[in-house]
């Protein structure tokens, strides 16, 4: 029998704790495939964050560190400065990266820290039970914005890719989605590029991946995928916001 599909070597043989319909599993797989494709698992050090992906160290089959809430880019900086030849990546959600960890991600990008960040944006705090995130859309209902997010009360959602793309240290900034197969393929390409940019020493690389949270959005998995396409992509346009060619 011909082997047509197998688990990437950079993933462990563990069942994840993610909810049914959540796209964290897909994003884990794409990240692991990129690590496999580039043959860097042996020198990869991942940094798990706080939020739904807190247990990412159980799933990525490489050396891992677990960081405090929002601090993954600082932890990754420490690792990379000690071992510049290692492939160092962070895997962070929107509460972790865009709220409590805003200073760490902005300054890692500003320093041109040679790390790769996989930023999973599902517009909500998943692990803690569906509270408002800095990326929650205006009007979106969460457990701490029960009347829908009101811009006059708590501001507009933050577009991280656009923000980081203003920094010369950010060599690669892209926003992708995993709501359908063509987009998953594009996401795979972007994530691989983000690792290549790091390994070629060009600077900081981040891929923002629009993701779902069926549990806390209160939607069925399919409905969640449509919601990404119909609501999130309008406010968070996909594309490459900065590519190494622009880095002088």
């Amino acid at each position, binding site marked *: 029998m011909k082997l047509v599909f197998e688990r990437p070597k950079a993933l462990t043989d563990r069942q994840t704790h993610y909810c049914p319909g959540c796209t964290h599993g897909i994003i884990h797989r794409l990240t692991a495939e990129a690590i496999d494709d580039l043959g860097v698992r042996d020198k990869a050090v991942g940094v798990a964050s706080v939020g739904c992906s807190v247990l990412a160290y159980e799933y990525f089959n490489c050396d891992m*560190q*677990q960081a405090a809430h929002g601090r993954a880019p600082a932890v990754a900086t420490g690792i990379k400065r000690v071992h510049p030849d290692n492939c160092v990546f962070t895997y962070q959600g929107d509460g972790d990266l865009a709220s409590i960890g805003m200073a760490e991600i902005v300054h890692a990008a500003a320093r041109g820290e040679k790390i790769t960040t996989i930023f999973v944006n599902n517009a909500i705090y998943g692990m803690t039970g569906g509270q408002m995130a800095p990326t929650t859309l205006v009007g979106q209902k969460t457990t701490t914005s029960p009347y829908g997010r009101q811009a006059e009360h708590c501001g507009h959602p933050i577009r991280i890719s656009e923000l980081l793309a203003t920094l010369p240290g950010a060599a690669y900034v892209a926003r992708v989605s995993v709501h359908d197969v063509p987009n998953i393929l594009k996401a795979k390409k972007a994530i691989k590029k983000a690792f290549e940019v790091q390994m070629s020493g060009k600077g900081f690389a981040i891929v923002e991946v629009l993701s779902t949270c069926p549990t806390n959005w209160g939607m069925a998995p399919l409905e969640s995928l449509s919601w990404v396409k119909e609501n999130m992509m309008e406010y968070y346009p996909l594309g490459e916001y900065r590519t190494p060619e622009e880095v002088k």
Partner: protein
Amino acid sequence: MAKKLMKGNEAIGEAAIQAGCRYFFGYPITPQNEVPEYMSRRLPEVGGVFLQAESEVSAINMVYGAAGAGARVMTSSSSPGISLKQEGISYIAGSELPCVIINIIRGGPGLGGIQPAQSDYFQATKGGGHGDYNLFVFAPASVQEMVELIMESFDIADYYRNPVMILGDGTLGQMMEPVEFNPVKKRDLKPKDWATTGCAGRERNIVNSLSLVAEELEDHNIKLQKKYQEMKDNEQRWDLYKCDDAELVFVAYGTTARIVKSAVNQLRDQGIKAGMLRPITIFPFPEKAFAQLPDSVKAFLAVEMSAGQMVEDVRLTVNGKQPVHFYGRTAGVIPTPAEIIKVAKEILGGER
């Protein structure tokens, strides 16, 4: 090696480099700025990395990453900055990572002032951040002693896989004293086979403080407590000064101990039998020192540049056997020998 006149903060940096520290992550705050400045100049000369972080929070997390990657790493700050580092320190202790942290204390609370103080004793010796953990804490009283303790601290941190804190104060950081950098006692250290260096040729390593099963987390806590007990059993350090026939024993550490020493000498000149017990480790607190004191001791007087923090450990150790008195100045005011002598005489008058 010839003695060299050095400012305390610069001597801290040189001691760390001599001990093999090659990574430093910090953030400016008075009165310790000469430490990062010195490291920014010296580390590139020895193939190391100095990085100015965007905050103390970030700096301590860079320390976490570098320590987890197996490096000898240090950060320094002063009181308000050390408060910001507490989250990271708790993670470092929980993940059992070795590193050295310098606190050049200034007066508090809040933004406080920039004059020397000892008001971070509780924070340093009782954990500081969340959870049941302890740092190994040295309290040097001179620039030379600080150099020697820092050089040893990296080995101690590696040996116990625990953060070591050097508790200094603005005086120690800012004053110049002659120092020499002599080799210190080396410990037998195991290879850092737990470090995240890339998993080539071995099972993957994970640096982590999360454990969602209560019983497993309790086992981890029991292991940590065993380590702290080992420190208490084997690492207590102190200095006794003129205690052989002392009736009043001062307890003081760091800069304050130097002032108290003057007070002891003046009291002795006046025929009053005073002595001093100077803790060098403040975690573990030198409980054993108290057992060595003669029966002549009638009372203790703890002197601190705080509202009374170490005195609590003195009381716990003395446990009611003798009265324990306290004298302290706060907020950056340094007690004078004259004030201390006056308090001592009042106490002895009362006891007699």
